[in-house]
């Protein structure tokens, strides 16, 4: 069975080309997933096949480009076969993979993508099964960071889910509601509108010190409520970072949020094809410094000005001052000057961008603003 046509074949060709350049003597490629998923990391199996693995899964690409999936648990084989009809799907782990390598005559000549996420036990099992010749994580991620037109359309659609869910967030952010209940309401809206897995952080306080997972704290009048809204579809995540005030926002809070928004807008404009990530951070920090908060542009007041979004690629990585990577047209990541400010506490303000020659384009079509929700309305 071969992936002769279609998106899978395109990805296989791109992978073979990249690995051929990085590891010319490799005779086959194995993309490996532990089945543990992260918002900020690539999943090699997902990228190649668009199957979000349930458990440890390998996608083996032979010399002629045919794809064989090794799936665990065995009961997930039908789902994998439905999802990846152009691939042969088998149940099995490293032993089955090793047998495949020997039969194909590629044992000892396998390039592996995904080793960076392996635990020691899995790494030992794969090494024994394949005698892995070379790890090609970096070369492959340079391929997977490129989103095609269909990917971008899907990402825009997912971002619309997030935009629509902002309404649920505002509606549910009321005095008397616990953070986890608010998170559940937003999550439910996203799932009902078609989202797959949801990444969601919800925090509230009169003066937030940080962003964190939802607790059982009950919202009160005057609270500042923070939400990172990250729906997904078919394994592609986007993220919006939003701040809502329960009641009327004090003028200083409005000014501070406007400052972060200005930083975001400036940063997005700087996200041009070829720009160095650290330079984007400098642009963003300059706006905040000019606003009088230069001392707060470092941990623990903030973590990063953004980050890559899975499951395609972790690139461009964390948007931090020491990141010297260059942005590439088509990179998709979230840019967020989320941070603590002394008068207003921790505030959120962020958009998912796609890098173009003219700067970063927000997939939501704009930049969010501070929202005040009425009490009892």
């Amino acid at each position: 069975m071969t992936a002769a046509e279609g998106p899978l074949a395109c990805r296989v060709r791109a992978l073979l080309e990249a690995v051929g350049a990085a590891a010319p003597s490799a005779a086959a490629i194995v993309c490996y997933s532990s089945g543990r998923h992260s918002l900020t990391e690539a999943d090699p199996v997902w990228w190649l096949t668009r199957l979000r693995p349930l458990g440890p899964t390998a996608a083996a690409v032979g010399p002629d480009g045919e794809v064989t999936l090794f799936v665990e648990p065995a009961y997930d084989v039908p789902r994998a076969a439905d999802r990846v009809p152009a691939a042969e799907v088998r149940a099995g782990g490293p032993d089955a993979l090793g047998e495949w390598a020997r039969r194909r005559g590629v044992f000892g000549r396998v390039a592996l993508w995904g080793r960076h996420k392996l635990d020691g036990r899995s790494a030992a099992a794969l090494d024994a099964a394949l005698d892995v010749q070379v790890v090609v994580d970096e070369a492959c991620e340079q391929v997977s960071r490129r989103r095609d037109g269909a990917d971008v359309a899907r990402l825009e659609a997912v971002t619309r889910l997030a935009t629509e869910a902002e309404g649920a967030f505002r509606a549910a952010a009321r005095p008397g509601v616990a953070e986890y209940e608010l998170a559940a309401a937003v999550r439910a809206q996203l799932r009902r509108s078609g989202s797959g897995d949801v990444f969601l952080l919800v925090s509230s306080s009169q003066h937030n010190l940080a962003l964190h997972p939802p607790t059982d704290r009950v919202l009160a009048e005057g609270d500042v409520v923070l939400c990172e809204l990250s729906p997904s579809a078919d394994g592609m995540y986007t993220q919006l970072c939003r701040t809502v005030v329960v009641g009327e926002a004090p003028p200083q809070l409005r000014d501070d949020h406007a400052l972060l928004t200005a930083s975001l807008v400036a940063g997005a404009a700087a996200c041009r094809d070829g720009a160095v990530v650290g330079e984007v951070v400098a642009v963003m920090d300059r706006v905040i410094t000019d606003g009088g908060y230069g001392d707060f542009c470092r941990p623990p007041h903030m973590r990063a000005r953004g980050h890559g979004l899975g499951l395609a690629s972790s690139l461009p990585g964390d948007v931090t001052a020491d990141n010297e990577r260059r942005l590439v047209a088509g990179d998709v990541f979230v840019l967020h000057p989320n941070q603590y400010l002394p008068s207003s506490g921790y505030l959120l303000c962020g958009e998912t961008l796609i890098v173009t020659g003219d700067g970063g384009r927000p997939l939501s079509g704009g930049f969010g603003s501070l929202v005040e929700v009425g009490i009892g309305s």
Partner: protein
Amino acid sequence: MTAPRAATEWNAPATRTPSVPITAVTTMTPAIRTGRSCFDRSRLPRDEYARRMRQVETLARAEDLAAVVVVANAATPAPVVHLANLAPTAGDATIVVVPGAGAVLMAGRGGQREEPYQRDVTWIPTLLQRPFGPESVRQVLAGRGVLSGRLGIAGLEDQVAVRVRDRFVEELRDYEMVPVDRALAALRRCLSVRERSVLGELDAMLQDALEEGAVVFREAGVPALAALMVEDELYARGCRDVRLLVGWPGGSVRPLEAVDDRPGTQFACYAAAELLGYWAERAATVVGAGTRAAEQRCRLVGVVDDAVMQLRPGADPEAVARAAREDEVDVLVRGLGTELVDLPRPESGWTELRPGDVVSVLGVERSGGVPALESRTAVVGAGGPAHLDELVIGGRG
């Protein structure tokens, strides 16, 4: 984007792949756990921390360990949650316990930004922020005068990326590293009455949620919407993590990746959830009365109930499951607690049942189109299985 409207029925004919026996349960890992994240309130007060730390110190003395290091990742955090009452939001977390000198927690990738939250939630008073990792572990040990000797370590092989494992090995080369994964798992397995009461509450939540899903299914006839109701209900009631598997045409089960509105004549759902750091599971099937599917479900209930009756101290859980299996009927016996354990699991010490074990018996009947799923939860009592409510405080009775 709206939920897709598919023309085909959920209960369409079997797909090209034949049904496969289910011998272990794997669910889809989320990118982050989105539910209520604080574990410790009135249900599990701070003295639980003292009790558990005493157990670790006793273990250290018995094994002549100068210290114990526990590493766990955000996806499978039980070893850290049990001692710290905090699960890392992302990345790995590490606890260093030096007997007589207390414990230090290094809590995940959230780093300094999450520190106020972490301090609010965790039992461990000493929290070390970035930079952390193997180098910091060595520094913490050195700072407490532990420069060499036997070091108990858990999670090194299966909880951290191999590059992190290798750094641990390099940084801690002056110590004799002794794996204590199994010993710590054995401590976690012994559930206190408090812990069983959380499991009892969660078990009731799971039953209620599945009943809510059944109501939706009876009204709308759409299995995915019914499953989504189960998920929503559990999150709304304070579960941190919810995992679903839904019966699928062809005798298989699948995760609920995205909701669609295909109609179906049968709703079979497996739900696992975590509440306050404890996991339980339930499964249920809704079928039309008088149908063949109803007969299959009835057969399955009988098989599961018979298996439950075999749960007694000393029983081999795998033998119980094996004896209960029939043609196209899978039975699994699973341990409930700080994690869900497919039994037997020798590395965790679960090779025979002990009094107080909380166990789930899960059955899958695959002879029809969509499999039927059923489960029971029981406590292993001295004379045999007992209902969870009989051994918990504040149970539903």
